[in-house]
């Protein structure tokens, strides 16, 4: 076994180097003996030529120990890197110089060290905390060998905003000396920021170089050197770096832990504005000590492999017999989202109808004609521009569907501002995470949203949809209201060609939508203008939604496409954050208002429509009988439910498209199609819609999908989608995006399923929910359907417990009547469910557990949270406490 100096650090990495100093603070002829961690000698000993060097620069009050995971991974890679992780002078195990080293000295110090080391070839800097600034200072002085920059939770402020409150406190003379030097408080507080907490031995290692007040002088000086204002000695040096990096065009990777009380998301946004080309990954739930909280080595080296400089060559895969060629992106003619609206600027027929207008719900329906809508969008765009909204700015719209939201969306699209749509269905915590992640420049909201924004400290300048009293305006920090924007727009509009100046790049970001969050924190999904337009075209071509169609918009995001489709859209009277509040009467009234031929409604809304259908008056029934098309997406709808919907909408063709926030729609199936497909392994979701290609990446024994798409029927694997309306990328989730696009030309959906001989797609569950048994990979859906055939079972979920590859399947069921407490199935239920599942799906269940209620996600109220359920079942079946899932 290799001798370790500290946990995770073999002795051979630790070395000392004598370095002559050229720092201004040192007298001429000064030599310092630096301590660093360096795998260079190890690589040289093996005769391995590294790809380049990672120069890792710690912050305060850590030391090179922070980078041990990079060192460990670097040597083991097929393309190894040298990693040089330094201990700054006065820090870690480098000597205490007895001098107050400021930022400029430290940048010079680092250059002295690399000169002495004689680093040759490409260097990628890696910095954390204030080490980020020093690493960038080094980068700016070594442009010729700089190959890239990696930053974790750092800041180069100084312009624009205050120091974080925590640092202000640390700088305060009353606490500074005591907090940072006399006592180890600053160290302890920093170490306590790790999420999850650091193991004891790791905490000890971080503390090791700073055991006495004398050893901690550097920690105190580091904090004291933070330039709080322009009078601070290091202000010019910091400004030089902060401005200098605007000229850096090398690849940049920003890995960020958002739960950082010091270097919060605002500093990430500041950096992004200076390094707009950077790849970003925010690790939701991670904090300041990101290299401790998460695996940063895999993404860092994965990212390095993908950089063109790093001579990375993926071997050309040889396609198998059933391989599907990499799809070429078909260049469909691009018609902007606003084209239809602009073409109808003189049309006086209704464009949008609100059954319950936002500012006066009791006043009855409000209608805007195409001409009025076009005019309002134009004024609003001009008003937003006057307020400072620019192309590329992110505008978070916290406004319920209706005329205001529609106008705002199209005004932003016109301006080239990026619409951020996060709905309250995510729950307050989820919504807050989503908004902080997206980091909007502006928030436009109803009062409740503005109150939430203030309380939860959401970023962005504030615009109110409604007029507010002065006191509330001040309280919420509202800069303008919608009415003021319209007025300002009118004033702007009097200038010639003010409105015509905007023509956003079709391939620029247009919108960010959020996933449901049923499989972890909601992810932002970025669409370009071209991709949004493609979504519109796919809907239009698949469902023949010609101009002149009138649709009830009860389901986002399709509902927002009405003006782009040239279709009249009506927003029914309902609480859109709770689809279950749509009543049959509200639906019928909305349909009657525009003589609707199409209805978009979520499955949960349909269930309530059926439940309240008895209250319909004859004329309301008549309005529904005119509907020709029903679209309901979000979750599969059981055939019996659809059959009842058909009775209510006798003339309608019922369709349940399958898709996801990243690509919608993907396939489509009608009620007749569902009946024709019958039962099988999974849920039949039909055939691909116009412009979409679907393929399968077969799963291996450990459940990993192949890198090669296949169209062979009957093969179960991850569902891959290719279409012009697939998302551009995940927002600030570089790792997630890279994984989702790892099969070139395809989007990996994370869903598992198979194609049948007729080309229909069957969804068998989520990739994260597959069960890897000793006998092979199993998907849960068929077993769940089999369990649900038992009269005593209302809803079933089948999950795997145990380690990967040796899992056993367990059914967790809701019973009729429901049990009061969770526990093993009683009486003959376990045996009967087990038999039903063996017979129908060939799967041997280890156990059947009954629960009062299965956990589901907030938005759809229908997707079972199987990951959580699996964790619970594993605990329950290990013995001891049962609890509830």
């Amino acid at each position, binding site marked *: 076994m290799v001798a370790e100096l500290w946990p995770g650090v073999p002795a051979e990495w630790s070395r000392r180097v004598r370095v002559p100093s050229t720092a201004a603070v040192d007298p001429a002829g000064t030599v310092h003996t630096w301590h660093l961690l360096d795998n260079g000698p190890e690589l040289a000993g093996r005769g391995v030529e590294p790809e380049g060097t990672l120069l890792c620069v710690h912050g305060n009050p850590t030391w090179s120990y922070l980078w041990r995971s990079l060192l460990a991974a670097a040597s083991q890679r097929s393309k190894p890197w040298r990693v040089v992780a330094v201990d700054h002078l006065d820090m870690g195990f480098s000597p205490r110089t007895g001098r107050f080293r400021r930022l400029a000295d430290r940048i010079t110090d680092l250059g002295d060290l690399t000169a002495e080391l004689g680093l040759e070839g490409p260097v990628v800097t890696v910095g954390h905390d204030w080490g980020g600034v020093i690493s960038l200072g080094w980068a700016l002085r070594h442009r010729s060998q700089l190959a890239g920059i990696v930053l974790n939770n750092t800041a180069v402020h100084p312009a624009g905003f205050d120091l974080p409150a925590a640092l202000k406190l640390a700088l305060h003379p009353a606490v500074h000396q005591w907090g940072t030097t006399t006592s180890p408080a600053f160290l302890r507080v920093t170490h306590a920021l790790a999420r999850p907490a650091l193991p004891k031995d790791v905490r000890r290692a971080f503390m090791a170089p700073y055991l006495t007040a004398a050893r901690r002088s550097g920690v105190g000086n580091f904090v004291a050197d933070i330039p709080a204002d322009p009078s601070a000695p290091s202000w010019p040096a910091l400004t030089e770096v902060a401005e200098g990096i605007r000229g850096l065009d090398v690849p940049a990777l920003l890995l960020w832990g958002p739960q950082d009380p010091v270097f919060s998301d605002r500093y990430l946004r500041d950096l992004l504005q200076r390094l707009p080309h950077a790849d970003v990954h925010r690790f939701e739930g991670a904090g300041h000590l990101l290299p401790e909280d998460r695996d940063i080595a895999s993404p860092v080296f994965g990212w390095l492999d993908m950089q063109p400089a790093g001579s990375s060559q993926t071997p050309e895969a040889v396609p198998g017999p059933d391989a599907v060629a990499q799809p070429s992106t078909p260049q469909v003619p691009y018609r902007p989202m606003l084209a239809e609206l602009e073409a109808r600027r003189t049309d006086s027929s209704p464009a949008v109808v609100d059954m319950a207008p936002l500012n006066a719900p009791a006043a009855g329906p409000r209608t805007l004609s195409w001409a009025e809508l076009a005019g309002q969008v134009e004024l609003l765009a001009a008003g937003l521009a006057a307020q400072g909204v620019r192309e590329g700015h992110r505008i978070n719209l916290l406004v319920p569907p209706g005329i205001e939201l529609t106008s705002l969306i199209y005004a932003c699209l016109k301006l080239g501002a990026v619409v951020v749509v996060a709905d309250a269905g995510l729950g307050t915590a989820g919504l807050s995470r989503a908004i902080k992640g997206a980091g909007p420049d502006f928030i436009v909201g109803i009062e409740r949203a503005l109150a939430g924004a203030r309380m939860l400290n959401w970023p962005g300048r504030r615009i109110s949809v409604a007029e507010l009293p002065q006191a509330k305006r001040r309280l919420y920090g509202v800069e303008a209201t919608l009415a003021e924007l319209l007025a300002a727009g009118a004033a702007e509009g009097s200038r010639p060609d003010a409105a015509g100046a905007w023509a956003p790049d079709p391939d620029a970001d247009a919108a960010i939508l959020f996933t449901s969050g049923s499989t972890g924190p909601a992810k932002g999904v970025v669409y370009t203008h071209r991709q949004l337009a493609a979504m519109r075209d796919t809907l239009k071509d698949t469902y023949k939604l010609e101009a002149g169609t009138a649709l009830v918009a009860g389901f986002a995001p399709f509902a927002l496409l009405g003006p782009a489709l040239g279709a009249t859209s009506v927003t029914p009277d309902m609480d859109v954050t709770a689809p279950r509040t749509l009543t049959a009467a509200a639906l019928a009234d909305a349909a009657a208002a525009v003589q609707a031929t199409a209805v978009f409604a979520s499955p949960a809304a349909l269930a309530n429509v059926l439940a309240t259908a008895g209250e319909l008056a004859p004329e309301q029934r008549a309005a529904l009988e005119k509907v020709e098309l029903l679209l309901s997406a979000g979750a599969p709808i059981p055939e019996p439910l659809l059959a009842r919907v058909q009775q209510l909408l006798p003339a309608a063709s019922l369709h349940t498209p399958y898709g996801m926030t990243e690509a919608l729609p993907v396939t489509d199936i009608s009620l007749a199609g569902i009946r024709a497909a019958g039962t099988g392994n999974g849920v039949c979701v039909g055939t691909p819609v116009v412009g979409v290609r679907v393929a399968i990446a077969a799963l291996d024994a450990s459940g990993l999908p192949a890198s090669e798409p296949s169209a062979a029927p009957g093969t179960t694997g991850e569902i891959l989608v290719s279409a012009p309306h697939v998302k551009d990328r995940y927002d600030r989730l570089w790792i997630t995006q890279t994984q989702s696009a790892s099969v070139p030309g395809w989007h990996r959906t994370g869903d598992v399923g198979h194609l049948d001989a007729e080309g229909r797609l069957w969804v068998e569950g989520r990739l994260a929910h597959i069960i890897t048994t000793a006998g092979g990979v199993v998907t849960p859906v068929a077993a769940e359907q089999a369990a649900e055939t038992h009269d005593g079972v209302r809803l079933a979920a089948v999950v795997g417990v*145990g380690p990967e590859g040796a899992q*056993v399947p367990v059914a967790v069921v809701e019973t009729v009547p429901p049990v009061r407490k969770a526990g093993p199935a009683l009486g003959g239920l376990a045996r009967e469910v087990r038999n039903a599942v063996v017979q129908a799906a060939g799967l*041997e269940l280890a156990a059947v557990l009954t629960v009062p209620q299965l956990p589901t996600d907030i938005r759809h109220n229908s997707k079972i949270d199987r990951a959580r359920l699996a964790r619970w079942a594993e605990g329950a*079946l290990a013995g001891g406490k049962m609890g509830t899932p």
Partner: protein
Amino acid sequence: MSRRTQEQDPRNVLVTGASGMLGGAVAALLLEQGHRVRTFQRRPARAAGGPVPEQVPGSLADPEAVARAVDGMDAVIHLAAKVSFTGEWDEFVAVNIDGTRTLLDQARAAGVHDLVFVSSPSVAHFGEAIAGAGAAAADPDRARGHYARSKAAAELLALSADAPGFRVTAVRPHVVWGPGDTQLVERVLERAKAGRLPLLDHGAALIDTTYIDNAAAAIVRALERMEQAHGQALVVTNGEPRPVGELLAGICEAGGVKPPAWRVPGRVARGAGAVLERAWLAAGRRGLVQDEPPMTRFLAEQLSTAHWFDQRRTREVLDWTPSVSIDEGLRRLAAHYQPGRTA
């Protein structure tokens, strides 16, 4: 020599502990396969139908008796052990550790080629739940109870004796049951009849068990696959974990007894088990009680924490899968206890 002929070649095999249920089943299976079987035990083996093995009486504590038993043998399957939840440590050492050492020494000296040491997963169970784990290393210091500790030491001893020319493997069948089984089935039925069988916690802990025929087949198979198996410990189960409550209910039903309906928290049972164990031990020393305590800490742990295993390596090494499922085993159990009953 191909594997196939090796498998079919009749060999001289000594089975120790053949008076027990598993030992008896192993001897019977070997005979059925055409091997020449000799058994070694203190009491005469029970009479079974079919061919009868040669019997050598004696104790593992007697090296000369052991030498007589291994004389002329090609292989040994060692099942003899002191199996009990209670008893003095010295007794476990004498039979399980020293007895194994004697057998290993004598077998090697007698030119025996192969030895299967029948062990127990409890040698690597340290109290916490086991969910889908493989065969961890035996640890006499951390194993729970005298039986498991002594078996752990013996298994280490046996595997360390593995060498070219004297190949040793350890097979650890987990909770073996079947008709006539006194360790689990009859104990469960007896206690259930007396109303003394509680469910611990919710009876939800997943437990792997092994139907007797499968356990015997795996042990015999280990001898055939010695080339792949030697030097290793393999856990053997049916590979069908079930909640312990369901399993006990199944056994009770097969035995025609009402299944347990009352529950005791596992924590309480473990505590009570530890107390009873000590009391029983003290009473036993004074000759006051002969049978085992109604609850021991070991038993409470077994019944309230998950124990199920990853069988992939076992099945790969042995090139074998169990032939009797749990459901089929329960049917056979019912046929044994309630011959008139129709399934």
